[in-house]
């Protein structure tokens, strides 16, 4: 049964003149992994900050577990786990203390907290570092501790703000594996990310946000099929007659000047035809990805 765990109805957040989130509506089902994507300043972090009470809503209704966030913040926060973007590991405490002290904020009795902390550190392959301090650990380890700490209260919803930003490939895969396993256990997850491969790999459904609004929402595979197609033909230094041919054939494409991207469900025949006739230097046909969708919808300009 489709049971909503988060429901946002026309939620807005403004800071003076600046509109960070503009009348956004979405819903997350129990057991679902839901991703929020968007360029810098799209409103992703603000949206999730509203869920855990860091940013009061300017307008709209936001419910978590069926409870209104503006009135039941404490009850909601007792049932969620949050991994913030910043490193919030307490450097004054050891790793195990970070977990047990955190458990105390949830009024979890000490014996249970210690058992749970041990279990979580083992799950994150960090049990050998229980008595280290955060400053002695690598970025990947710190991120896993934040994740372990967010799970100490056995949350029903896990909120992750850019869980793998700044991590190396090995560390990213370590985090993904843990998240996969949590997902299999039925945990609901809401995450924001800049990485399209992360979203494709982890998320059942995503929204792509830009300038405080939701541009699209759906399953990653469906969004790719809908907005790009099956493949992308990538041609560097395209010749003028190729441009003319593509116009004539009414193909979906994007012209980046020195590179041409042709979207669609191409077959090998067309690929061979174009590559033989127009591209003596060769061109590439590859599978369409979420990144193509993202760049097509949010543009290629820098957001700074």
């Amino acid at each position, binding site marked *: 049964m489709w049971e909503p765990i988060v429901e946002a109805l026309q939620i807005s957040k403004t800071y003076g003149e600046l509109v960070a989130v503009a009348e956004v509506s979405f819903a997350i089902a129990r057991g679902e992994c839901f991703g929020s994507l968007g360029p810098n300043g799209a409103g992703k972090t603000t949206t999730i900050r509203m869920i855990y009470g860091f940013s009061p809503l300017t307008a709209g209704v936001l419910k978590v577990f069926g409870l209104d966030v503006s009135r039941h913040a404490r009850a909601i926060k*007792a049932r969620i786990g949050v991994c913030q973007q*910043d*490193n*919030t590991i307490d450097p*004054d405490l050891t790793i195990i203390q970070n977990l047990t002290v955190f458990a105390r904020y949830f*009024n979890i009795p000490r014996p249970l907290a210690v058992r749970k902390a041990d279990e979580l550190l083992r799950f994150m392959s960090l049990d050998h570092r229980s008595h280290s301090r955060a400053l002695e650990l690598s970025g990947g380890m710190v991120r896993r501790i934040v994740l372990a700490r967010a799970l100490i209260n056995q949350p029903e919803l896990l909120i992750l703000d850019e869980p793998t930003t700044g991590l190396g490939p090995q560390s990213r895969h370590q985090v993904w594996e843990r998240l996969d396993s949590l997902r299999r256990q039925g945990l609901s997850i809401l995450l924001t990310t800049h990485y399209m491969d992360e979203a494709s790999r982890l998320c059942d459904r995503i929204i792509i946000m830009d300038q405080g609004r939701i541009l699209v929402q759906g399953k990653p595979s469906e969004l790719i099929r809908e907005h790009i197609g099956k493949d992308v033909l990538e041609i560097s230094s395209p010749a003028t007659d190729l441009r003319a041919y593509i116009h004539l054939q009414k193909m979906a494409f994007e012209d980046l000047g020195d590179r041409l991207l042709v979207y669609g469900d191409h077959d090998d025949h067309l690929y061979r035809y174009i590559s033989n006739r127009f591209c003596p230097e060769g061109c590439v046909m590859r599978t369409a990805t979420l990144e193509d969708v993202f760049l097509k919808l949010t543009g290629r300009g820098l957001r700074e």
Partner: protein
Amino acid sequence: MSMGILRVWQRNLDVYRQNWKISFMPPLLEPLLYLAAFGVGLSGLIGEVPYGAGKISYLTFIAPALLAINIMNNAFFENTYASFVRMYYQKTFAAMMATPLSVEEIITGEIVWGATKSVIATAIMMVILTIFNLIHYPTGLLLIPLAFCGGFAFGSMGMYFTGIVFHIELFNLPFFLFITPMFLFSGTFFPLEGMPPWPQMLATALPLTHLVDLTRGLCYGSFAKSVPLALGYVLLFSLIFYPLALIKMRRRLIK
């Protein structure tokens, strides 16, 4: 509400307990240094100072003032520099806010912790002063609850500044403008009675003056009639700065 305050307080106590061997040194050594410099060094030059109707030794005069200064410094330092580091650099408050704790509980827990630091420092210092026979008992025992009240007042004031400064360097300002003048001019190192009226009035406005009055009364076991007034003034400072600190910190943390 109260449980959350305790949780924040416990976090700070856990950290303190790891470093207690270092943390308890300053309140132990500082009064010894002051007693040596002012009590022994200056005492010879000054001899006795007038207090109430009679005269007391200079050492007896400054010992309670050192207690009051210690109460002020410990809480004020804890809720400015130390709280700011936790809030700004270590993101400790941000992590706490994602748990059932509210901003009010976090800030109150911090201020209560600052007051606790004042109590710990006072207790340690009392040991030294008792050895030198500078505290009258049993009234001296009331210094402990007084340290908490004074610590809460100065801690709230410190937390208010933590709520408004942009950068840690800016704490130099309240230290330079409030703490240092209070340290020197609150009837701490010389009696106010002999001063012209306007510096006396200025000193009366400073909360430390009243805290010094109270520590003197408790150390000497003789209560002046100004005690309720002095206690009232210290409490008034809490009543003003504690809500202000909550408002400023809420505005700072919740956007």
